């Protein structure tokens, strides 16, 4: 159904919000687990940190950051409309504004995180 129906910005916004929410959730569970293990065995933690430092780890981190940033911004978009329903008339505007912020804040951040991969 979802794939058959041509929704607009609102539907895409929701789909991304849901997907990013689930993705972050999965990460958080792993994250709690790894820290827990680190508490018992510092060796495990070192392995983990090495993974984070690896190129793959960094790319995944960027994805996580993107998901978090998107989810946070869209969360705020939803909140704004929840508390001021008349803003629903501008939901697409807010959504595009979110993407502007996403790029302005996200691209430099991604560059910082990814720099080491390229030895910078």
């Amino acid at each position, binding site marked *: 159904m979802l794939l058959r129906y041509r929704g607009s910005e609102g539907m895409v916004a929701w789909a991304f919000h849901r997907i990013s929410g689930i993705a972050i*959730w999965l990460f958080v569970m792993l994250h709690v687990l790894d820290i*827990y293990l680190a508490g018992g065995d510092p060796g495990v*933690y070192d392995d983990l940190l090495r993974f984070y430092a690896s190129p793959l780890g960094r790319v995944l981190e960027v994805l996580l950051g993107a998901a978090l940033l998107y989810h*946070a911004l869209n969360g705020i978009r939803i909140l704004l409309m929840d508390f001021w329903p008349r803003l629903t008339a501008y939901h697409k505007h807010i959504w595009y504004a979110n993407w502007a912020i996403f790029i302005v804040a996200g691209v430099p951040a991604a560059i910082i995180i990814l720099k080491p991969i390229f030895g910078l």
Partner: protein
Amino acid sequence: MLLYSRSGRPRPQSGGFELFVWYYMRLSGVALFVLALIHFSVMHFVFDPSQEKSGWIFSERWNNVLLRSFDWLLLMMVITHAFLGIRTVTMDYLHGGRRTLALTALYLVGIVVFVMGTTVVLTVQIPGA
């Protein structure tokens, strides 16, 4: 002249759990907006955790009660917000017995994660301190 007009609207007696969830998702969302983004920034731009060794987290970050409370609060918010969120998703897509099963599993996992997280943040002793 009597105009039929109300200033306030009577509220329903019981909002129920769903109302609570709705509200809580929004409040925790605001909190997370601040906490999670700070956390992510701190972890990546102030320090670079991947440059540190495991000793770092204990020696620098959790040496401070304030930072410990911060992390615990963040953890609470993330876990509750995320699990309630996943609960919504589950309830959307699963029905009947499978829903009950999935939700039970979800709550159990939630409790486990909560306990694990809290254990780490509150009870881990600083090695060598």
